[in-house]
């Protein structure tokens, strides 16, 4: 697949730019400004019904619709991939309702909407990453009452969260939380980084880009401004560690990136490939070759197979 930087297309008629009406955008924009001013704090907002079911990124879509301008270039990823149903349909949604340019190239995008991953390529100052969040409250499974979790955040009373991580250690010998790993933002609020693998947590720390989080069903928006301290919770004797992989990517030979396991057959065959499809493609274009990368058939290369 190649980067699809289509030129401006005329948006669908009958809708406002980027689908949402202006009053809704203003309400969401005010929530975004407050979220930036209080890093990691969950701002309630009047989430709207979107033409897609909850769980498909209605929160992220509303945030993206509210920040998007006609000159923005949008990239959408789902589990690191530009090609999955969720990513393709959200990209199409904004192409049709806003007529903005879309891309799969991380470096070209000004707005990146994501579900479950942060791109491998570090984000720059001109970029905004919008996370789709299913459950924004990191304390929810420890304390189901919203009135109580709000009080815990107000008092910065986060002992419960450390107890939860401690119980992991007591039961498994190590902190077994591998995704939605809680972080402390700017030394104050404990925040759920959405179900990204903990592998991506260090990328949130002092990121040059702006990070916005939208939870549609739970009606919360939160943010991490650029260059903000983000610390993954841990203990002195059990420091935070990210996942490591024993093999490089089977297609592009990248090391130190997050890999997906692909089951190949029913006899235990498997391969590990980059979860970030764009980063993997760019590396292969640069000539990096993994152990299981096949040669492109001559016919597809555009070379004649006839002599």
């Amino acid at each position: 697949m190649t980067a699809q930087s289509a030129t401006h297309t005329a948006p669908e008629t009958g809708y406002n730019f980027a689908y949402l009406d202006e009053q809704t955008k203003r309400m969401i924009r005010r929530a975004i400004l407050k979220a930036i001013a209080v890093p990691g704090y969950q701002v309630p907002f009047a989430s709207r019904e979107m033409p897609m079911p909850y769980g498909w990124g209605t929160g992220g879509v509303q945030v993206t619709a509210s920040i998007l301008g006609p000159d923005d270039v949008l990239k959408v990823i789902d589990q690191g991939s530009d090609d999955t149903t969720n990513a393709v349909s959200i990209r199409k949604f904004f192409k049709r309702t806003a007529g903005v340019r879309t891309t799969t190239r991380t470096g070209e995008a000004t707005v990146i909407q994501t579900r479950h991953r942060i791109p491998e390529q570090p984000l720059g100052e001109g970029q905004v990453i919008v996370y789709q969040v299913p459950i924004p409250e990191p304390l929810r499974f420890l304390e189901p009452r919203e009135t109580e979790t709000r009080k815990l955040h107000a008092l910065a009373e986060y002992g419960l969260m450390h107890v939860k991580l401690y119980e992991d250690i007591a039961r498994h010998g190590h902190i077994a939380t591998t995704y939605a790993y809680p972080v402390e933002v700017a030394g104050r609020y404990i925040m759920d980084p959405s179900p990204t693998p903990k592998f991506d947590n260090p990328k949130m720390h002092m990121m040059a880009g702006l990070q916005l989080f939208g939870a549609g069903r739970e009606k919360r928006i939160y943010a991490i401004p650029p260059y903000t301290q983000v610390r993954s919770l841990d203990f002195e004797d059990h420091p935070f560690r990210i996942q490591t992989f024993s093999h490089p990517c089977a297609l592009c030979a990248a090391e130190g990136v997050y890999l997906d396991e692909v089951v190949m057959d029913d006899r235990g065959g498997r391969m590990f490939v980059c979860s970030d499809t764009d980063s993997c493609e760019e590396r292969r274009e640069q000539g990096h070759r993994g152990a299981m990368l096949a040669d492109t058939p001559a016919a597809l290369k555009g070379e004649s197979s006839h002599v």
Partner: protein
Amino acid sequence: MTALAHGFGDPVTDAQQVFHAAMNALARPGRPQPLTSGLEPPRPMTPELAAIALALADHEAPIWLDPALAAASGAADFLRFHTGAAVVADPGRAAFALIADPGMPLPVEQFALGTAEFPDRSTTLVIAVEDLSDTNGWVLRGPGIADRQSLLAAPWPHALADIVRLNSAVFPRGLDVLLAAPGRIVGLPRSTRFVEEI
């Protein structure tokens, strides 16, 4: 009876661009962001104050006016017509406070500071100044600033030192500030601290 000054020429794009400047301003405190406003509001309201109000205020977000604007004929009518927002006398009810005269003291502690549970329910102050520069001046630190950021506003708003001091005392409650000079705005969210005062 005088004719009402016009609003945004292209309400959708203009509002997005003003919001974009405000978002970047608060995300990168102290760093000036370009803001173009084609508005000609009744004086002493500046085109930048008007642009921020029209982009962000509506019937859910009441506006408080400083004495200079409250006394001006047409300022409140202009805002009511174009935003649908209530213009309130009680600073504690305001989502946005528009301040045209930075030299006057402000009722800093009477604005909405938010609550411990809902710190977002606080007033955003939009203060007009004549010039903004980041080459020298006060030194800022905080989220959104890689290391240190300089800021100089002319004239220096009378209430700003009080606001920043209050913010550090009551965080996460507090007041967020946008400084608006001709063609550029600067954000000072409540998380920003002054490390060196000049």
